[in-house]
């Protein structure tokens, strides 16, 4: 029980600063447990209905029919979720919201269910139900797929029945999902109707008093509005109130910027209905006309407390535009979802007999909505098995309804002939078992054309067989297909380049003969799975470089190269396009036909497909603008799923930022035929679209520098142009903050060009540098002002003789705000200020001067009471601090004759001594506040030792500002004397957990709480060692700085629990024996040297050398680290290095750091390598440079083999001065 309560309290701490999909005070993870947030007959807020198998013939009979789950009044009590019996629905799942669990705990899933109609026992048996409870991985952390996969099989009856099960769950970085899944055993059977109520996913032993919660339900079930149209938001709230009415505050927030755009006070009236708990149902309504285009969310507040809110998402759109073929606006497209539920169907069934209805939406609605999202083009997978299931037997009924729907909604089709490439990993046996699994997308008759290559195989039917298949498609849908592609990503696996060219030739010949205007695309190269994106192009060139004569364009998929700003890396998108174009014998336009994953710049998604396809508005538009600027003729990159939010819906899933951004971009490009790129600065992307015979144009501009710039738009009038934000809202301010979000400019083309070329841009500061001297050491850290992760190069001026390196590559990948602290021994005289410049990829992006703070009056913690300094506090009390036997001793003597005991564990309400220890006083060194509103607290320990125990018996209180209250093994002795009292406290050093490094410095304060009763009134007086009495619980800058004795540091370093991992031995290379670098493992090969020595500056270093004739192996040092599994999230490595002989650059060369991860049973979990690359010109690297690296540690890792040194392609000599590591927990 205690364990569970601790778990809950930890979760509550987390919930304070993270998203709404996390546990509330009541321990409930999901929305709308009692189902009363929905209105009877409408959808069920908080639950998404996905039809895994809808019988195709039923669906095809009415492609405009959508399917919804509904709120019913037949609940237990009140309302219930009603999952209707729909004819044709053979399998479905109802998905709850994404659930984030940050601490190990026990979770209970419980619910009531019954069939909606009376079923006999046979019918009941045919209906199979299960609760699926799984966790999605963060692949960056090396997690396996579904780190948790569990569930409950349940058998409802005709009467209400309760089901529940408890699960031990582990904290995970990515989200958990809970689904109610159902199917009918019979291939042609339907799932019976079901009522569900009281569905809880909650922490066991949580507070049973339910939190308030609200559903905000737009009157448009698609949550889509056009400008000018009135929006009605129905508000249904479950509140802990008995009043007849209640007022809540409702704010509308632009979700790309988090800006509040409007606030309402909403009057709610209490309804007489039984909610099943003590909360009462209140309802109300807000009506308004939108003033802004874009994508919005709704937040609600009751008595200034944020409410758990489901729904309230909506978009405001421009009228959709039908663009002429190949014009810039036409080039915005998407990939349609696979029509049939491959992978969601048992092998005993033919999955082509069913359709998959994502979110229950009809085929026709999906196309209609895609058009509203600005899509003019869709990429449709013409899977071979859908069209020719048996040899020479063709059918149109699987694909046909979709083609009809696209046509009905004015969406042009890019058709992939055959769909998937016919490659397989493995051999023919594997192929056959794959076919037997029922998942194959290839008709079984094609298996006889299996071709086995070295490691993989592929099906390569004769050209005549392919042509026969193609001929059917031409006849059936040829006139409706604008663009033809053949095989998705044929370069994956072992598809023969020559065979592919043969298919390409016949496709080009046959299609062009019938439809000369149609576009035929070849190649289909992809960067997916980390592939060399041009490899397939080179293979085709080897087979026949004239293959480009048989195509109109080159299809490619720029995975991991989808944007010109990507996680600190620049211009990968442009470079990917150029690299592919450079392989072509003849110039041909490129088409980006798929790229489902686009990494958001400000808050990169966790590395998992479902996360990565949630695309921000700015990324959606930049992906297209960069593509079109680089000459792409079509971009069907995103998947249809990206047009909708994953967030729990109130009816159908709400449109996403990408939806609204696509609509706005399409609208902006109305009437535009071509583009002219404006080269202003490589980080400033700009261009102007123009229409032939049309003076008017549309410009765009954005800034890829992470700090962005202030853009002076005050002269827009002078140029006669108007400026719009990314959603097409007119900007009236004189200044705009130009960053990743594009702005648009409308006016005459010439004027737009002038305006975009000449208007002023003032680059904003990207970062600050903090520096503080303590004794003979300086501590330096960077503060990132951009909000974006990445690495900045800081060059210091005039510090040659000051003891700090010429450069630090400050790494903000572990913490986007502060870089790791760098520590150096200074040489005096040290300047009062240090000048620095910031660089990004070698380009200066800012600079400044940092006044160096100097810590004066530093204190030392002695080894005995006798040697301890007598410290005097602000009102005359005295204290001594010393360390002995692994304990920090604090003895305080206070004059106070009126001793008051606290009533309870609020010990500061009685006479007490408080001790504050800041374990990392030089981390975030410009920060005074210990806690902040973002919930990112500093690692400060607060001990409270009462003079007399509290009336409830409490004798000691320990609060860590990050983790909360915790148990303490500290010993305390209090003695009263004639003048007052003395307290001696002994705190085990092992109780102090350092954030990421064990330093020999702590911030320290003592506060005396003097509570006196004067005339029955309590008077509190605070006294402290620092100069800010009464504030030490909240602020830390005034703490005194104390230096720990060496034996304490050694003691702490030996305990891996102090940090979560072990330390590097001999990290400063001071221990050298006959050139051997003691404690480090390494291997020396022909032509390489690894030597510990004193360099020309008498510094202990390791010299790594490789000459040009060296054997092709790395010259690196190795050491093994032990870590506590799941306690370390990242490891930061800081290396001080310089080159001492010319460095020669080669591709993939550099100073390398590698982590190889192992479990405690020595299972290899993979490895991660980071190379900093040296340039040919090494001049700027012959000065000392600190390189900072950040590694993500798999949660199951118990050991890390750490390697650092020169890669096998780097020649020259490098000196390493020291290597240090920090663990991030």
């Amino acid at each position, binding site marked *: 029980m205690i364990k569970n309560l601790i778990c809950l309290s930890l979760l509550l701490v987390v919930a304070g600063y993270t998203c709404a999909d996390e546990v509330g005070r009541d321990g409930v993870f999901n929305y709308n447990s009692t189902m009363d947030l929905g209105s009877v007959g409408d959808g069920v807020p908080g639950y998404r209905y996905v039809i895994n198998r809808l019988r195709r013939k039923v669906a095809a009979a009415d492609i405009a029919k959508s399917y919804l789950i509904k709120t019913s009044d037949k609940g237990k009590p009140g309302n219930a979720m009603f999952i209707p019996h729909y004819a044709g629905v053979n399998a479905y799942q109802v998905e709850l919201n994404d659930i984030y669990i940050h601490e190990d705990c026990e979770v209970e899933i419980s619910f009531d269910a019954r069939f909606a109609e009376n079923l006999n026992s046979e019918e009941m048996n045919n209906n199979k139900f299960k609760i699926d409870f799984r966790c999605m991985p963060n692949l960056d952390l090396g997690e396996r797929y579904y780190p948790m996969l569990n569930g409950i099989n349940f058998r409802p009856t005709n009467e209400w029945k309760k089901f529940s099960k408890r699960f031990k769950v582990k904290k995970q970085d990515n989200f958990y999902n809970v689904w109610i899944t159902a199917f009918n055993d019979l291939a042609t059977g339907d799932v019976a109707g079901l009522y569900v109520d009281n569905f809880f996913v909650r922490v066991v032993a949580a507070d049973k008093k339910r939190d308030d919660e609200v559903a905000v339900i737009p009157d448009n079930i698609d949550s889509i509005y056009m400008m000018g149209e009135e929006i009605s938001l129905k508000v249904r709230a479950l509140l802990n109130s008995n009043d007849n009415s209640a007022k809540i505050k409702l704010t509308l927030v632009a979700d790309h910027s988090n800006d509040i755009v409007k606030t309402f006070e909403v009057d709610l009236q209490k309804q007489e209905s039984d909610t099943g708990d003590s909360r009462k149902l209140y309802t109300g309504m807000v009506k308004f006309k939108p003033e802004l285009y874009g994508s919005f969310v709704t937040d609600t507040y009751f008595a200034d407390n944020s409410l758990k809110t489901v729904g309230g998402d909506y978009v405001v759109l421009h009228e959709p535009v039908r663009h002429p073929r190949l014009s810039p606006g036409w080039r915005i497209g998407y990939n349609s979802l696979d029509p049939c539920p491959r992978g969601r169907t048992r092998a005993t069934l033919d999955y082509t007999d069913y359709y998959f209805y994502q979110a229950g939406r009809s085929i026709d609605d999906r196309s209609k909505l895609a058009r509203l999202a600005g899509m003019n083009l869709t990429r449709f997978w013409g899977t071979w098995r859908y069209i020719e299931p048996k040899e020479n037997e063709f059918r149109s009924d699987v694909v046909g309804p979709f083609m009809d729907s696209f046509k009905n909604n004015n969406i042009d089709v890019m058709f992939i002939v055959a769909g998937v490439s016919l490659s397989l990993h493995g051999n023919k046996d594997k192929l056959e078992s794959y076919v037997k699994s029922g998942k194959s997308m290839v008709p079984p008759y094609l298996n006889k054309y299996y071709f086995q290559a070295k490691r993989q195989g592929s099906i390569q039917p004769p050209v005549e067989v392919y042509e026969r298949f193609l001929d059917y498609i031409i006849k059936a849908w040829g006139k409706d297909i604008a663009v033809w592609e053949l095989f998705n990503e044929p370069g994956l696996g072992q598809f023969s380049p020559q065979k592919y060219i043969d298919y390409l030739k016949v496709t080009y010949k046959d299609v062009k003969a019938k439809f000369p205007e149609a576009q035929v695309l070849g190649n289909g190269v992809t960067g997916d799975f980390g592939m060399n994106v041009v490899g397939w192009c080179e293979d085709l060139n080897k087979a026949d470089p004239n293959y480009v004569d048989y195509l109109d364009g080159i299809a490619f998929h720029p995975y991991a190269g989808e944007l010109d700003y990507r996680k600190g890396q620049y211009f990968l998108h442009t470079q990917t396009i150029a690299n592919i174009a450079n392989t072509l014998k003849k110039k041909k336009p490129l088409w980006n036909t798929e790229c489902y994953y686009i990494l958001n710049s400000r808050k990169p998604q966790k590395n998992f497909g479902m996360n990565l396809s949630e695309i921000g508005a700015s990324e959606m538009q930049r992906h297209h603008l960069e593509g079109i600027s680089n000459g792409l003729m079509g971009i069907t990159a995103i998947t249809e799923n990206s047009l909708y939010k994953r967030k729990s819906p109130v009816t159908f899933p709400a449109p996403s930022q990408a939806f609204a951004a696509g609509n706005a971009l399409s609208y902006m490009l109305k009437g535009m035929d071509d583009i002219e790129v404006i080269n202003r600065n490589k980080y400033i992307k700009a261009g102007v679209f123009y229409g032939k015979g049309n003076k008017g144009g549309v410009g765009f501009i954005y800034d890829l520098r992470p700090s962005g710039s202030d853009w002076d738009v005050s002269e827009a009038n002078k140029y006669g142009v108007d400026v719009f934000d990314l959603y097409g809202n007119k900007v009236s301010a004189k200044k705009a903050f130009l960053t990743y979000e594009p702005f648009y400019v409308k006016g005459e083309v010439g004027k737009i060009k002038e305006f975009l070329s000449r208007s002023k841009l003032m680059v904003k500061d990207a970062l600050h540098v903090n520096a503080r001297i303590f004794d003979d050491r300086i501590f330096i850290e960077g503060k990132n002002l951009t909000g974006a992760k990445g690495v900045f190069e800081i060059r210091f001026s005039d510090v040659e003789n000051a003891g700090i390196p010429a450069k630090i590559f400050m790494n903000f990948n572990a913490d986007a705000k502060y870089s790791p602290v760098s520590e150096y021994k200074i040489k005096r005289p040290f300047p009062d200020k240090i000048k620095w410049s910031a660089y990004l990829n*070698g380009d200066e992006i800012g600079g400044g001067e940092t006044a160096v703070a100097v810590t004066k009056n530093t204190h030392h913690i002695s080894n005995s009471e006798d040697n301890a300094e007598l410290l005097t506090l602000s009102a005359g009390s005295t204290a001594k601090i010393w360390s002995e036997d692994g304990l920090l001793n604090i003895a305080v003597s206070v004059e106070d004759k009126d001793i008051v005991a606290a009533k309870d564990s609020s010990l500061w309400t009685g006479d007490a001594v408080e001790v504050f220890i800041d374990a990392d006083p030089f981390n975030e060194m410009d920060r005074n506040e210990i806690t902040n509103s973002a919930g990112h607290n500093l690692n400060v320990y607060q001990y409270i030792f009462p003079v007399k125990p509290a009336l409830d018996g409490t004798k000691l209180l320990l609060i860590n500002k990050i983790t909360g209250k915790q148990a303490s093994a500290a010993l305390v002795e209090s003695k009263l004397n004639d003048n007052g009292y003395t307290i001696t406290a002994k705190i085990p050093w092992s109780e102090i957990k350092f954030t990421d490094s064990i330093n020999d410095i702590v911030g320290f304060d003592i506060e005396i709480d003097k509570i006196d009763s004067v005339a029955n009134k309590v008077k509190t007086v605070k006294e402290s060692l620092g100069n800010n009495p009464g504030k030490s619980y909240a602020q830390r800058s005034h703490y005194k700085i104390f230096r720990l004795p060496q034996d304490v540091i050694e003691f702490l370093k030996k305990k891996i629990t102090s940090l979560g991992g072990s330390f590097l031995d001999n990290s400063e290379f001071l221990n050298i024996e006959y050139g051997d670098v003691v404690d480090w*493992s390494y291997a*020396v090969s022909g032509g390489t040297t690894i030597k510990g020595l004193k360099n020309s500056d008498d510094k202990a270093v390791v010299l790594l050398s490789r000459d040009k004739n060296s*054997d092709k192996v790395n010259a690196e040092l190795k050491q093994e680290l032990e870590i506590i599994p799941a306690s370390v999230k990242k490891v930061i490595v800081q290396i001080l290095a310089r080159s001492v002989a010319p460095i020669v650059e080669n591709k993939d060369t550099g100073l390398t750091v590698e982590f190889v991860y192992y479990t405690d049973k020595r299972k290899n979990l*993979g490895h991660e390598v980071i190379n*900093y690359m040296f340039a040919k010109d090494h001049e700027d690297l012959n000065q000392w440079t600190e390189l900072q690296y950040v590694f993500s540690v798999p949660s199951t890792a118990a050991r890390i083999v750490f390697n650092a040194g020169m890669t096998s392609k780097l020649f020259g000599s490098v000196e390493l001065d020291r290597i240090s590591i920090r663990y991030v927990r």
Partner: protein
Amino acid sequence: MRKLFIIIFVVLGSAVFAGDRSKEARIDLVGFGNEKVAMAIDKCSAGVTVSKASWLKDEIDTRIVASANLSDSWREYTFSFIPKKSGMIDFNLMGNATKKANWIFYDNITIDGAVLVNGDFEDLAKDGKPVNWSIVNDACVVNDSGAQSGKAFIKASHNNRLSQNFKVEEGKLVVVKFWAKFGGPVESK
């Protein structure tokens, strides 16, 4: 314009590439006695890698392992080290522990800075074994025209070794030169 790029590769679940280690010569030098001699690696010729015995934890410098990529013909290899204290070294001629066991042929081994006896294996006892060498399992002298020098050479593998002890002096460079070639698979018994 000077540039610095960062390349991040994440390859999970894959092993670090290694060549065919079954065709490598391997000589282990092991400090022994009460106070084990530790060694500092100096340098080596092309094709040779000398490494510390990372599996020995706190004693990683008391054993160094020299390995060399071999061909089918004799080739000379060298490596050197500095003893961190005076004492005895156990010098082992062997091969790598791999699934496929191969013979490694050694001949004409000379050492500067220490005394190795009968490094050309020409001095044989009556039983045909090389004088001054200890033999483990089936390591043996081959006496035919294929020697690199003289008439005899030896064949060894990971489980079939020859060893000899010699003295070293603290701080005095020791240079090992040896000839070796690939000797084909070890026949199964």
